[in-house]
């Protein structure tokens, strides 16, 4: 009979084990993976484009061109987060305040990704190549080809900044 309290307390504890342990789901805070662009000068220092900047995304499907305004008349721009399309190629049309235009063409591989049952799926990308026109900007460098839910720089856009502009 001395064992009875022990047995009872064990049964009680066993009953608790039927309840699942407390669960904390850590879903990534950003549900969309964006390409990150940083503006730098010829020395690699961060620069700001003070005039207005509009960015239009362009996707070419089999029979049509789709345009999506991603950034509308932003000023003092030094970084950009732009969504890629689900196609193989996405173009970003940069419209500067002085009516000049540059077109960045990004070729990418799309990676549908399962995070977990509760957080769902999201699209990751791998940049395979990129090219740009050089009317206003100087060059484009891929610094990290993987676009996933870890926010990080993917591209550096070089501008030539003359002493007068500084």
């Amino acid at each position, binding site marked *: 009979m*001395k*064992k009875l309290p*022990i*047995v009872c307390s*064990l049964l009680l*504890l*066993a009953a*608790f*084990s*039927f309840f*699942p*342990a407390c*669960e904390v789901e850590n879903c990534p805070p950003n549900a*969309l993976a964006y390409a990150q662009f940083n503006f730098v000068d010829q020395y690699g220092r961060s620069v700001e484009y003070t005039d207005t900047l509009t960015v239009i*995304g362009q*996707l070419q*499907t089999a029979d049509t061109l*789709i345009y*999506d305004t*991603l950034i509308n008349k932003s000023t003092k721009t030094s970084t950009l987060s732009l*969504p890629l*399309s*689900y*196609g193989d190629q*996405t173009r970003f049309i940069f419209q500067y305040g002085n009516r000049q235009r540059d077109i960045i063409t990004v070729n990418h591989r*799309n*990676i*549908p*990704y*399962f*995070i*977990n*049952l*509760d957080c*769902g*799926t999201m*699209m990751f990308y791998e940049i395979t190549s990129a090219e740009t026109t050089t009317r206003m900007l100087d060059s484009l460098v891929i610094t990290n080809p993987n676009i996933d839910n870890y926010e990080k720089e993917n591209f550096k856009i070089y501008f030539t900044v003359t002493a007068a502009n500084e």
Partner: protein
Amino acid sequence: MSSLLLCGSLWAQRPGAHKAQPVQIQKEEAKKTEPTENIPLYQGMSIGVEIAGIGSYLLGSDILNSEVALQANLKNRFLPVVEVGYGKADAINDANNLHYKTSAPYFRIGMDYNVFYKKTHLPGYLYVGLRYGMTSFSYDVDGPSMTDPNYGGEISYPFSYSGLKSNASWLEGVLGLKVKIYKGFCMGWSVRYKMRMSIKNHENSVPWYVPGFGKNASSSFNLTYNLIYNLPF
């Protein structure tokens, strides 16, 4: 110890025994042999079945997990154990219609240490232990098509991946209790803290549930409830 020494000296003073010197020898012998003499190395085997996992599955969980443990008792103090189990998950999240499915056996090897090894009069004992676990499994994951949230939503990607192979290994720290209930039958419960050591991920997914480990994370915590039978050999 003092009573033993007393016994030794009493025995030494029996009629016909030698004098001073043999008394000393008897004392030393008693000291040396006392701890090992009483407990033989092999104390028996036990077999246990984990039933909390079966219970929660019967109560409607998407996950079924159960295992059989074969444990040896050495000197009533060291308890090496082998655990073989089976983990199964077939879950759909109603909110996003994602479906994850896997089922595979898993293995663990380790040892428990009986903290109450001196208190043999008690009906049970408390133990701490370590386990190394491993599993090799394949999983399926599927869900609704993914539609581009930008660019007019023109392009959709089907989301269905099956037969993805993975393997995982982990370490477990165990704290538990085992209590005799009737004759050779015992029951036990334990809390286990699991630390993932390795897992194979895929480009399109990470396993959501790992048999024997639980939901995939760097660590997990769970409770077990075992019915144990002490084998009669």
